[in-house]
């Protein structure tokens, strides 16, 4: 499987052309060695399209997995001592849609200590079957026991698709379990669909650029993905009272080479994920001192301040104020983007916003493709005037 070069068809002209069109610089060509494709290749298949038959993509018949043995869409329940994280409910809502396509069940997995009653809540948000591993040894998240339990559950129940919240715990646990199962894992999906063939269609921004990729795991089960908080909507709660299915915890599962010494709760700080009005600063804000000007506007609007990644890298903001693929996903009623260019990673974190207003000097800035209102102008001119106006109106 992969790209095959048909040497006889590679002329010097074609070789040079393919070398120059590869977006990843993975193709090399010289007369003596001919055409070769290096490991920078991302399989965009541009060379296949433009190669006049000199490069072809060959699919190899791999042994096929029996997909009928894998059933159900599983949601891993993220919680802290029984307090369930909202991302879990959002994922249950999505899982219900996905499972309906093939008449599958929505499954939920909860791991912890003294959580049997708490787990019932998962039924109220759409789970058909809730499985619980309850043991004092599972009270706190430790990577090895949790991986063992999760893995053992999958071996036993064989869910077809698995959705995990892209929280710090989920991002640590999901890859660990996926690697043990030797299956695929797609991080930070922004959209999910289900095919009739039980294949999970995973869509996420990719290649670190302004591109979306449609990713599938066509020949492995289970299929694993993580999804950030606030990407999907939390379904309505429906009252119900059903006992969860209790699973057996064995001593071997609890073996850990890491020991939890201490847990310190961080000071309560309203997460920008929960904010209703947000003002986001981008690189258009030229110095740290200028943030005060934007903060003033934010204060008048009762807004939380947020930023893009470069501002975190400059140490102007703590990482938890970053909106984007590597930061937080937000769903405010109003988002004002000030000097934000709108790279796809940033935009990925703001799509659920009700109203996006952008201020940027560059009329071609990609932020204007997602903004409902684009103000082409200098933030240093507009923001102080707006602040003054709001203040005078009061």
């Amino acid at each position: 499987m992969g790209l095959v070069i048909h040497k006889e068809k590679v002329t010097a002209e074609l070789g040079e052309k393919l070398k120059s069109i590869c977006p990843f610089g993975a193709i090399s060509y010289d007369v003596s060695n001919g055409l070769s494709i290096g490991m920078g290749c991302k399989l965009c298949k541009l060379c296949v399209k433009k190669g006049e038959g000199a490069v072809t993509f060959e699919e190899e018949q791999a042994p096929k997995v029996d997909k009928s043995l894998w059933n159900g869409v599983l949601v891993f329940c993220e919680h802290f001592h029984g307090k369930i994280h909202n991302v879990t409910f959002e994922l249950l809502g999505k899982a219900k849609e996905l499972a309906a396509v093939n008449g599958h069940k929505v499954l939920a997995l909860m791991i912890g200590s003294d959580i049997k009653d708490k787990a019932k809540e998962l039924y109220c948000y759409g789970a058909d079957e809730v499985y619980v591993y309850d043991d004092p040894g599972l009270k706190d998240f430790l990577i090895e026991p949790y991986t063992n339990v999760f893995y053992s559950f999958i071996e036993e129940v064989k869910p077809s698709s698995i959705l995990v919240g892209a929280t710090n715990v989920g991002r640590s646990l999901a890859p660990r379990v996926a690697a043990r199962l030797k299956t695929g894992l797609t991080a930070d999906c922004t959209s999910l669909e289900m095919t009739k063939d039980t294949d999970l269609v995973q869509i996420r921004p990719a290649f670190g650029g302004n591109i979306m990729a449609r990713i599938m795991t066509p020949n492995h089960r289970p299929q694993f993905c993580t999804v950030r908080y606030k990407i999907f909507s939390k379904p309505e709660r429906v009252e119900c009272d059903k006992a969860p299915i209790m699973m057996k915890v064995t001593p071997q599962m609890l073996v850990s080479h890491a020991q939890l010494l201490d847990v310190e709760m961080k000071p309560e700080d309203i997460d920008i994920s929960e904010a209703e009005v947000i003002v986001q600063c981008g690189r258009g804000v030229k110095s740290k001192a200028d943030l005060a000007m934007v903060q003033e506007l934010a204060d008048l609007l009762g807004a939380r301040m947020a930023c893009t990644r470069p501002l975190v890298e400059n140490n102007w903001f703590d990482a938890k104020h970053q909106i984007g693929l590597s930061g937080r996903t937000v769903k405010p009623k109003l988002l004002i983007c000030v000097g934000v260019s709108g790279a796809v990673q940033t935009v990925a974190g703001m799509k659920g916003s009700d109203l996006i207003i952008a201020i940027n000097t560059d009329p071609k800035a990609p932020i204007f493709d997602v903004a409902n209102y684009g103000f082409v102008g200098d933030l240093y001119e507009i923001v102080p005037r707006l602040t003054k106006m709001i203040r005078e109106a009061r």
Partner: protein
Amino acid sequence: MDILVCVKQVPGSSNVKVDEKTGLLVRPKKGNKLNPYDLFAIEAALELREQYGGTVRILTMGPPQAAEALEECLWMGCDEGFLITDRAFGGADVLATSYTISQGIRKAGPVDLIICGKQTTDGDTAQVGAETAEHLGIPHLSNVTRILSVEDGSVVVEANQENMIVKEKIQMPCLICTDSEVNTPRLPSYRRKKAMDDSLIHSFTLNDFEDKDNTHYGLKGSPTQVQKVFPPEKSTSRVMVEGSSEELAEKLGKLLSERKFI
């Protein structure tokens, strides 16, 4: 203590775009650089070496020019570098990448602590560290914000876990992924750059690995497949407002007032 840091060379600009007319990918013009998140991992390793002695080695997987990233690490003070490069490794997803790296680590020799950066700026998945640890059968901890001490064959660290900070004592060998708040990375040394010794960088190919089965690597070893790439959707209701700064401020104020935000 022997430490190994996993690093990656990433595009200088992550701005790969789709040409609207042709639907083809357009390559950024800028060159490559060392993944900025890796600098924190390297700094953490160098600080540990200063305190506890031992070695700091670096490992990367990539095309031959990825050796440049290793050179930069050597200028920062690392002792030795390993480049894993083979055509067979191309097209690898998270599973195949992490498996390849785990094989490279085995080949590089015994190690007490493996340190990875939080994520790369091109792949952005933050999953390779955890999967690598699984392939090696060792514990790991992500989002490490402080390395407190090394005692009785264990490392004591603090990590960020959503709304709390956890403190764990992890038996070595183990793998940690550092957060960017863990330290302030040093700059590469010009003196070291001048005195650079190429023999400190070693290359591995598939043939050097314990597992030589090529179906475990690259595209063949990758369960996920990119079916297609496409430009992101654009918002439907889109109004562009132009004019003088006064007009813009006024219109924005009016809009916010109409929508009852002020």
